């Protein structure tokens, strides 16, 4: 049994179909990334899973409990941690008061350990908190009762790079302890650092669910080449080259129809085959970067069509 199982989960607001017939499952003990552009339906899905909004069709089971059964879902929340995409607390309360309330309702076995890691300023009132501190306090409330499943909506927004890194380490350690993590993001690099599998959602529809490796292979890299001397365009006539753009500076004698000194393309082929060809030419600069998520969507799942 998966920790989360969606079965035709749908939310139809009439004028907009926020989630359409979503069916997939999140296995126990994995970090599952729920990836999509802003407005794709990630938060809608999460809010249905937690019972904040009702599906208009289909259902889901969270830790084995049908989300339409409010009582069962409430009981299950003792074993669920949640961080919302717009985490907010009572502004008049101090961080400590917030944690005391959460502790009284659901327990706080791991409070101290988490506070050592995330360190929100507990004595200050929440209204004086920066967005990063609100996020840290939210992470403590999400994990303090040692949940079996955590559902995190854009968890690293507002965190500085050092804490982000710590958080990634922490999340992997949690996964290794058997905790299931369902996290949404619109940032590909975040997901690739953390996740075992990814589900892609776009315009409310599930596009694909893939292990992270095959997703990254399919999504490709952006390659930029800047060479000292003109290179024949045939050099980059390789399988897996997309969206090729080449240019030569105005002062070069090279023919822009057949040669280039600068080029960019997205590459989904074997990176070693490309690298093997580079020493044949004198390079000024070469960069290989992850493709921006929006480009990935457009290229592979363009127009919102199902794959």
């Amino acid at each position, binding site marked *: 049994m998966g920790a989360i199982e969606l079965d035709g989960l749908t939310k139809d607001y009439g004028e907009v179909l926020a989630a359409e017939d979503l069916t997939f499952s999140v296995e126990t003990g994995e970090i599952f990334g729920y990836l999509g552009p802003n407005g794709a339906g990630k938060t809608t899905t999460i809010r249905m899973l937690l019972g904040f*909004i009702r599906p208009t069709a289909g259902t889901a089971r969270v830790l084995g409990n049908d989300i339409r059964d409010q009582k069962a879902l409430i009981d299950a929340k003792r074993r*669920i941690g949640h961080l919302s995409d717009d985490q907010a607390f009572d502004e008049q309360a101090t961080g400590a008061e917030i944690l005391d309330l959460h502790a009284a309702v659901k327990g706080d076995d791991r409070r101290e350990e988490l506070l050592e890691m995330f360190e929100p300023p507990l004595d200050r009132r929440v209204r004086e908190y920066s967005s990063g501190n609100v996020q840290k306090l939210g992470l403590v409330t999400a994990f303090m009762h040692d949940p079996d499943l955590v559902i995190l909506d854009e968890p690293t927004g507002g965190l500085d790079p050092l804490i982000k890194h710590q958080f990634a380490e922490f999340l992997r350690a949690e996964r290794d302890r058997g905790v299931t993590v369902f996290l949404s993001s619109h940032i590909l690099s975040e997901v690739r650092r953390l996740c075992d599998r990814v589900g892609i959602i776009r315009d409310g529809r599930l596009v694909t669910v893939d292990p992270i490796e095959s997703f990254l292979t399919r999504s490709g890299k952006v390659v930029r080449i800047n060479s000292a001397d003109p290179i024949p365009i045939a050099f980059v006539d390789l399988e897996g080259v997309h969206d090729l753009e080449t240019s030569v500076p105005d002062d070069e004698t090279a023919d822009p129809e057949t040669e280039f000194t600068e080029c960019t393309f997205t590459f989904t082929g074997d990176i070693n085959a490309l690298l093997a060809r580079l020493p044949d030419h004198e390079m000024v600069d070469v960069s290989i970067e992850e493709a921006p998520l929006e480009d990935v969507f457009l290229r592979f799942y363009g127009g919102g069509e199902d794959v």
Partner: protein
Amino acid sequence: MFEFARYDARKRVRGSVYLSIGMSLLAAFAVWAYPSYSEAMDMNQLRDAFPEPMIRAFNIETMASLEGFLSVELYMFGWIILLGLYLAYSAASIVADDIDRGRMDTLLSMPVSRQRLATERFAALGVPILLVNVVTPVVVLVSARLIGESLSAADVVALHLLSVPYLFACAGIGLLASVTFDRASIAQRVALGVTFALYLVESLLRGTEYESVGALAPMRYFDPNAVLLDGTYDLAGAAVLVGMTAVLLFASQAWFVHRDI
């Protein structure tokens, strides 16, 4: 259990102290002002000098005794109108403000039902309601003693006790507005508007052929004049107010549970 009630109750203590001080000052001022009024003029003439709609609106029976004077100046104005509106307004933010500011998801991610959350936070309004009704009668009785007037302590205490279900009923109106509207500012305005409209309906339609409409208004079931002037305690009215509060609370719970947030 009661974690949310305790949390909210603690948060309400400070405001309740200020509220009690404010209402006590109003009470002390009303008692202190009475002798100079009654010496300066014939209080029956003063009553008659009010325009008829005002006599009706404030249900002014007599001002020729401290009881009658307090009934109008302190209880009709201070309790039925001011405190009634204050409680409706406060209750209106219980749910709507959390939704408005994105805090409701955080609260409901805890293992707590929406019924329990709404009920416990509603119950925490007992802090201002009880505190103001414990402090003010003491101030009223002591002030009356200081100006040499005698007031029935039993009647004053009874009046304040009977105001408790009245104020909870007004808070119930606010709670219903709070679960109906997502924006706290709208919920608050609706709660104020509805509560004041009910007050006007009850006071202005009294004695007309539309009097029965006022049966919906909590103000019908709490009459300071009857307690202070006649010494009669309308327990049936209090029971109606308790029932009204229960109906408003259940309706609010039902709607809150049913709706998307």
